[in-house]
């Protein structure tokens, strides 16, 4: 992947496939330049046996092929910056996956276009789950949730082109001042 955001786009699919009704995404950049990217869902969760081997590229839930590279590629990029990936999960409760990136490292990927990524995520699953995102850094914080715009839209899908465009533009405007420094 060329951007940290693209890893988000990729691993969020795991939460969607786990049947989550809420997926909460968080980006926290601390003063030392460590970026935390977290995805917490209330999907089906993983049992300890599956959790123990979920980091392997040869672990996947799909039946068409025997490989799954979402988590291994995320780990590779987090670790090459000097960071790590933590995964907590309980069957019936959900999963929390957290990747840490050391943004001062020359080997750290840029955050990339987070607003477009959120728009793509929401467009891909417009009815369920509800997505929320929180971003914070020493420069400030913002939050957004699909639940706050659904009542305004009343029956118009979140996948309609005009709505997707609105999400992309409004999020970009709010995320820029907070995480703009690590986007490129």
């Amino acid at each position, binding site marked *: 992947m060329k951007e940290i955001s693209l890893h988000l786009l990729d691993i969020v699919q795991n939460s969607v496939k786990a049947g989550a009704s809420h997926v909460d995404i968080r980006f926290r950049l601390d003063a030392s330049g460590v970026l935390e990217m977290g995805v917490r869902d209330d999907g089906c969760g993983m049992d300890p046996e599956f959790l123990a081997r979920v980091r392997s590229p040869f672990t996947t839930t799909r039946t068409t092929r025997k490989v799954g*590279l*979402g988590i291994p*590629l995320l780990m590779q990029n987090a670790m090459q910056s000097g960071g790590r990936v933590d995964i907590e999960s309980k069957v019936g409760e959900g999963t929390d996956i957290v990747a840490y990136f050391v943004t001062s490292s020359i080997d750290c990927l840029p955050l990339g276009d987070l607003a477009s990524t959120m728009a793509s995520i929401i467009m*891909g699953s417009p009815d369920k789950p509800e997505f929320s995102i929180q971003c914070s850094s020493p420069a400030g914080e913002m939050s957004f949730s699909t639940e706050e715009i659904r009542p305004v*839209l009343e029956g118009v899908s979140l*996948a309609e*082109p*005009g*709505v997707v465009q609105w999400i992309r533009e409004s999020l970009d405007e709010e995320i820029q001042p907070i995480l703009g420094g690590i986007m490129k």
Partner: protein
Amino acid sequence: MKSMAELEAIRKATLSRINLRTEEKGETTRVVIGMATCGIAAGARPVMLAFMDEIDKRKLGHVTVSQTGCIGMCRLEPMVDVILPGKEKVTYVHVKPEMVPRIVAEHIVNGRPVDEYTIGAAEKN
């Protein structure tokens, strides 16, 4: 700041377009984009957003854009299927955002697939 008034206006514009869609009784054209790990890594996100932009710009009410997983031809990603009502599916490969306006204009609007971008052309070499 997020403007809810603007969103409300978008909702109204979208609703009138949806009504037009049902009145015309035209069947929908589907655009399906591969968005698994391989597609995303190869650049599917900007391609998908380019389709959304182009459809929004041309006010094409009868077109839906959706995502799919990996179909096993990862080396040809980003891949896009365009399915016109009553026609056979056309698969475009190695799609870049710059190619999208032409696919929309020639294929989705005028019904002539852009042969040089299709899987058939790519696999000949």
